[in-house]
């Protein structure tokens, strides 16, 4: 308990995640658009960017893609990969398991870089396409993770005991297997979201993703970095929001990993 309290307070981690999240969610609603000025001026709250746009108003607009694409990708990866993993783990037919998992094994050495650059080059500036690509890159690992976690639980004597008690399928899979999978999955989601944010941001940073005038945070960092010495806020502010989100998520994930670990230890 002492160790837990000694870690970063929950409020801090939550705040780190919430600030960018709220900016991303509510920012576009604010509809704040001051008159544009000249490139890299210090007028306004945070100055202007390379196109003379107000950096603060851009920040409000740019979170939707920066976080939305990453979160969307993780959600899709979990819907698809999680489903595959759960079905593969719970099936009684070995061939179903094999048919679902083996193709993913084949895909594993496919560099995600290639997939994403192909998608990014082919369907330039299309957020859904890039979201989907990032999601697809994550599917094999998610599927394997969920399968492994579920398999562990589903093949153990607890499930047999529950079957002996004639618990319903739903009762077994949601009540027990699902909860058993939840621990590893929750820990994984934390790091996966960070990774997805990185991936999306890197794609945008490299100019493979969104249009260069998009208000997206990563695009802002990329496009305004040559003006870093003229008007640092155009780079620092979006970078800070990105880092705040990933750092908060890392801290939350760390906390979760700790809790599950302590649970496991308690079991022994």
């Amino acid at each position: 308990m002492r160790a837990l309290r000694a870690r970063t307070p929950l409020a801090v981690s939550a705040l780190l995640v919430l600030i960018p999240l709220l900016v991303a969610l509510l920012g576009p609603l604010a509809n704040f658009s001051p008159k544009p000025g000249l490139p890299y001026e210090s007028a306004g709250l945070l100055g202007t960017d390379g196109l003379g746009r107000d950096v603060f108003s851009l920040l409000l607009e740019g979170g939707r893609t920066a976080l939305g694409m990453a979160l969307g990708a993780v959600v899709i990866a979990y819907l698809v990969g999680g489903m595959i993993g759960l079905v593969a783990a719970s099936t009684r037919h070995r061939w179903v398991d094999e048919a679902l998992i083996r193709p993913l094994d084949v895909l594993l050495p496919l560099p995600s870089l290639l997939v994403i650059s192909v998608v990014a080059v082919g369907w330039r500036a299309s957020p859904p396409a890039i979201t989907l690509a990032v999601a697809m890159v994550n599917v094999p690992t998610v599927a394997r993770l969920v399968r492994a976690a579920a398999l562990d639980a589903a093949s153990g004597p607890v499930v047999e005991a529950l079957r002996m008690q004639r618990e319903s399928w739903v009762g077994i899979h949601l009540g027990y297997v699902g909860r058993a999978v939840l621990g590893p999955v929750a820990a994984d989601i934390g790091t996966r979201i960070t990774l997805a944010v990185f991936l999306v941001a890197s794609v945008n940073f490299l100019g493979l993703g969104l249009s260069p005038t998009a208000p997206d945070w990563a695009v802002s960092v990329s496009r305004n970095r040559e003006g870093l010495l003229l008007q640092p806020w155009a780079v620092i502010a979006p970078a800070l929001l990105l880092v705040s989100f990933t750092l908060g998520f890392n801290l939350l994930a760390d906390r979760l990993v700790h809790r599950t670990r302590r649970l496991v230890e308690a079991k022994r």
Partner: protein
Amino acid sequence: GSDGGSGGGAAAQPKAGGRLRAVYAGGGAKEVLDPHVQSLFVDIARHKAIYEKLVELGPDLKPMPRLAEKWEPDAQAATWRFTLRDATFHDGQKLTSEDVLYSLARIADPTVPERVAQSSLAALDLKRCKAIDQKTVELVLTAPNAEFPALLAGIGTQIVRDGFKDPTKPIGTGAFKYVSFEAGRSMVANRFDDYWDGAAKLEELQILSADAEARANALQGGQAEYANDMTATFARTAEAGKTVKIVAAKGSTTHAFVMKVDQAPFDNPDVRMAFKLLADRRRLVDVVLAGRGVVGNDLFGKGFQYYPADLSQRERNLDEAKALLKKAGLLNKEVEIFTADASAGFVESATLFAEQVNEAGVKLKVTTGSAQTYAKDLLTKGVIGNHRSGAMPIPQYITDRLLTKSPFNVTHWRQPAFDAAFASAQVMTDEAARTAKYGELQKTLRDQGGIIAWGHPDYLVAVSAKVQGVQAAPPNTLDQGRFDKVWLA
């Protein structure tokens, strides 16, 4: 840093020796060593150091003698006699007429479609071209053309040795001798002591490839002494310090929006005029070019030979534009502008222009396409898009883009009367008459054509403080990137 040429200082006494590393925008595997296959600035710079052309372009894009000492057309401008200079190849051989004829034939070789000057030199009737003597060569055209010398100054027209086969062993008459080359990375060349125009000061020249950020970093970090094609933002940053000088060639290239005159809504001249009236050129230049440029007047080549300087500057006029749009029934309609991150400032200017058009009640929606295929896509896709052109003589620009048969006619400007008028101007041997005729044609274009040329960005070269002798000149002209005149202080 200071604008303009950096060599003007009277105290500057040229000094020999040293190595200059010049960084250009890279082309990766696309970079070539064959002087007739070039298309990137970095290729051009590399080939310029090793090879030379018969004709070069002056600062106003007017042809000027280079390997050809002088030329004379016949009365119809259909047969041209070029007298060659006493130049020496790197292998010690003298330049002869045979080298010229071989080079032209090599360019025209139909089995190698990537030789870039093929189309511009198509007018050459190679079978009838001949060497008069060692130093005189007669070139015959299939159709008369008073602008022919300018075509010999186009890209991919370098003169190679007779029998030149292997492009990986370059031999030219240029100021530098080839040492090594790695596509996408670097080329190394050494001073050629027997250069006819006076041997270079530099001992070694390295031409490196890198993107804009790396060019800036390399220059600032002292890993390069010369960086080509820098951004206005970099110039602003660099001007604060002392280590880097900016050499700016005013208004050298052209930024424009191009409308397809045969497609709705731009098939209506009123709509074209309305859009021209909607562009806030000053703001576009201030924001997209960060003020480093000249406001355009809907014509290519401001300040070049044949440019009609007497035309009044077109200004933004929202009311008139609205009236025209209303007349055309376009108010509250949506039009898509097709752009891509293919060239610096494309998406930015499209986005900004969209805002300016929106003020008139027409929604201009920005659609971004693929950067790599944009040049090709623009020919067919979209009704309005971005266009940028490097420096070239105005007649060549018209030939390439504004005639019915032009290969890059992005505005679909196809007017038989215009074609005919242009053809008649091209055969006029009297330069004044030609200039007048070209002026008329350009006025037509400005008022009826599909080009909204909003700005002419400065061409920015950055050099480290010790580099001297760099001239401010538009790209594709003789004085741009002339490393034989540069020295290290």
